């Protein structure tokens, strides 16, 4: 199918499914939906001709007759029973999503008063004063075709609101389960609002539970108000037949502090769009990412740090290990706008290639329009340090183990940035398993994923 046919099919879907899409969605959402659809008609699904998608061809992923759920589909069985996240000592507020829809039997959460965690649909109706203020304000449907598509088709997802001065101690863990007996395209839309002085930690986990082919298009909008502290951890662990498009838009107000860590462990094709807008002075942002790819997997991390205000600090570090026929791409953009003086922006991308058929394409970019700044970027592609290898071998460690240790050390630099200890230990364990070629799922997991 050509790209035009794909785009036309979506247009047909939108027009024919309009009444289903509008049903149960708030009026505000539906207005945004219309606007976004116009943008999608203009942009379409990005192709290789789009400079930002130069190394990721989405057309084959879209070129498939997926089922699209325009309404909540009742989940068979109790997801709470079927799935439980087994991370020792990681006590989280667990929220389940099924194919991008907020699960209607989620357990009651242990959250401070005033904090809202609910479905996006519910928030649009019940908390419209918050919802309308933030929804659709940070994502860029006018620039990204897949964001426009998401906004046009989105009906549900998770909504999180942390009021002023409230600290949510227990991390909120949102698990999106892709579970369908038919090939499915899921659209998920999340909105996170962290008010002044508030603090919260959010973990997004994606899991595929059946062998169907999936295309998941998720957009998350996150607003972090003054003096707030926010952590975002994204764990991507799907099967080879899944395409994950994950776009995150973060807006930071003055003095806020955000840490984002995207860990791609497994998945057929992963595209992460990570936008950060510095919309206040003295913000601090740390964006980290790690990708471990083998077989014919593909991962593409696109980040954009938009320094619109002076005196902000951003620090970005992505690391990847590629084996077999895996391909990876990294695009990091830092834009320091005119008058965003005293900006400090750093960016690094390191890659290890383990086979001759693995490919890495990296594009770290600096766009600097202010003079009093400190900006740097660096990218490396290489193999393991022979000296380090020799050092280990000289101490009686066999080559395979020595390589494993070095690879693990390489990845650990990103893992150690995680600010939740239990999660950090867990990821360490998962990564080690992953590097040893064992299936990277939890021991007690009841679900047959990754097969």
């Amino acid at each position, binding site marked *: 199918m050509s790209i035009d046919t794909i785009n036309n099919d979506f247009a047909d879907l939108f027009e024919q499914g309009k009444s289903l899409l509008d049903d149960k969605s708030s009026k505000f959402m539906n207005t945004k939906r219309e606007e976004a659809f116009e943008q999608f008609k203009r942009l379409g699904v990005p192709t290789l001709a789009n*400079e930002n998608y130069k190394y990721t061809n989405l057309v084959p992923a879209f070129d498939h007759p997926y089922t699209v759920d325009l309404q909540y589909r009742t989940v068979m069985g109790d997801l709470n029973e079927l799935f439980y996240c087994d991370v020792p000592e990681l006590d989280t507020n667990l929220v389940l999503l099924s194919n991008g829809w907020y699960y209607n039997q989620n357990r009651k959460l242990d959250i401070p008063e005033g904090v809202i965690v609910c479905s996006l649909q519910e928030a649009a109706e019940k908390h419209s004063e918050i919802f309308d203020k933030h929804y659709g304000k940070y994502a860029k449907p006018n620039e990204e075709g897949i964001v426009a598509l998401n906004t046009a088709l989105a009906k549900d997802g998770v909504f999180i609101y942390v009021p002023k001065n409230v600290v949510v101690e227990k991390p909120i863990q949102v698990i999106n389960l892709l579970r369908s007996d038919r090939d499915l395209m899921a659209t998920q839309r999340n909105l996170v609002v962290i008010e002044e002085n508030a603090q919260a930690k959010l973990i997004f986990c994606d899991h595929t539970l059946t062998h169907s082919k999936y295309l998941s298009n998720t957009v998350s909008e996150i607003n972090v108000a003054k003096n707030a502290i926010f952590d975002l951890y994204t764990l991507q662990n799907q099967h080879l037949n899944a395409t994950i498009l994950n776009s995150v838009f973060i807006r930071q107000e003055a003095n806020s502090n955000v840490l984002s860590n995207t860990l791609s462990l497994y998945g057929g094709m992963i595209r992460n769009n990570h936008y950060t807008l510095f919309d206040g002075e003295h913000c601090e942002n740390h964006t980290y990412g790690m990708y471990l790819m083998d077989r014919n997997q593909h991962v593409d991390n696109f980040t954009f740090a938009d320094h619109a205000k002076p005196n902000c600090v951003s620090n970005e570090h992505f690391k990847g290990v590629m084996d077999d026929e895996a391909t990876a791409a990294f695009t990091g953009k830092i834009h320091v706008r*005119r*008058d965003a*003086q005293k900006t400090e922006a750093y960016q690094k991308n390191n*890659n290890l*290639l*383990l*086979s*001759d*058929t*693995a*490919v*890495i*394409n*990296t*594009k*770290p*970019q*600096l*766009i*600097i*329009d*202010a*003079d*009093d*700044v*400190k*900006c*740097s*970027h*660096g*990218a*490396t*592609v*290489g*193999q393991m340090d022979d000296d380090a290898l020799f050092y280990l071998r000289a101490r009686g460690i066999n080559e395979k183990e020595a390589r494993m240790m070095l690879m693990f050390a390489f990845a650990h630099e990103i893992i150690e940035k995680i600010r939740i200890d239990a999660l950090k230990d867990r990821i360490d364990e998962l990564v080690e398993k992953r590097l040893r070629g064992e299936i990277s799922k939890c021991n007690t997991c009841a679900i047959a994923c990754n097969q």
Partner: protein
Amino acid sequence: MAKEEQDKILNEVTQSDYKYGFSSDIDTDFIAKGLSEDVVRLISAKKNEPEFMLEFRLKAYRHWLTMKMPEWAHLDIPPINYQDIIYYAAPVQKAKLESMDDVDPEIRATFDKLGIPLDEQKLLSNVAVDVVMDSSSVKTTFKEALAEKGIIFCSFSDAVQEHPDLIQEYMGTVVPYRDNFFAALNSAVFSDGSFVYIPKGVRCPMELSTYFRINAENTGQFERTLIVCEDDSYVSYLEGCTAPMRDENQLHAAIVEIIVKENAEVKYSTVQNWYPGNKEGVGGIYNFVTKRGICQGAHAKLMWAQVETGSAVTWKYPSTILLGDYSSSEFYSVAVTNNHQQADTGTKMIHIGNHTKSTIISKGISAGKSNNSYRGLVKVVKNCEGARNFSQCDSLLLGDKCGAHTYPYLEVHNKSAKVEHEATTSKIGEDQIFYCNQRGISTEDAIGLIVNGYAKEVINKMPMEFAVEAQKLLAISLEGSVG
């Protein structure tokens, strides 16, 4: 440095904006404005070219018609009307030149003013020069002396007449006419340029140089340089250019092709100083150049060194294809933009042969309201073992209205490759200026000093005469940018 010398330079720095901005009154042979198949045929006929050249031009022209001007660069270029350009202008000359005396005195005066000696006797330095004015080559010096060694150094037109076999063999092999919009345009209408052929085992005893000058109004300059270096040979080639100050934008679209065979070495240095437009950004040259070399044999070596200070818009990516095993390439660049200048420049290193090596050192300096981008590609193909690349791109910002951008592309398809890229952006440290001030050096001079130090790594790679010119140019280009 002697006191007078210092004063002289200071005087030059403070007074001149663009000192090559005069124009000369020379009898020039124009053709009508516009571009069509007839114009292509006319240019070919005027140059009395063999059939294969005309065919090449026509193929290129027909292909050009199907292409669009590229828009991906970080440049803001107003639409160019390609029918509003004169594609051929050449100074009228009497028959064939026998000696120096036959060169039009006005042309001689022009080049004397530019400091380019056409007269071999007066030459101080050991440099052979090919002088190209508007569309055609005026004079090539030391031609005979070089011929003794078997070196061919002549204008492209002469080469077409005298060595058609070589031209046919090599032209378009490195930059095919289909390569890009400007390469296709150039291939259709190019008028002249230089041709260099270094036979096997010969080390060229002197620096070869081409000096390009745009003089006529409303014209575009389209020249083509072809350098072929046989096994075990060596040549150092320099290129310089200037143009008069005019309110219009003139188009310059050139092609440089370099073929380096086994164990051969080529150094290609450029000091690009086309008219950059005035302080308000009116006028100036659009410099759209395709430069590419291929290291064909094992251990071949190609070095690019460039100082880019001129042109309203620069769009230029000297590239190397590293085909031979153990071949290597280096790219050193200083790009300075001031006022409303825009530059999008960098390099491409394509690693194909095993154990190939490349180094990229790029220094960007932006001042005024200019934008300066580095755009580069390092590609390691699948079967290329042991490739090594190191890239460093630094940007210096002088003033808060300018921009410095870096767009490196690293594409690695082999695990044995080691590719590193690093870039920094900063302004001149206040502590550095303070240090100089403390020692009685004025702020303006301090900045000149610091900028020169910053660019030294690149300028050191240039031949002596060029290095001196380049340093002065840096100072002039930045004149008035610091307040």
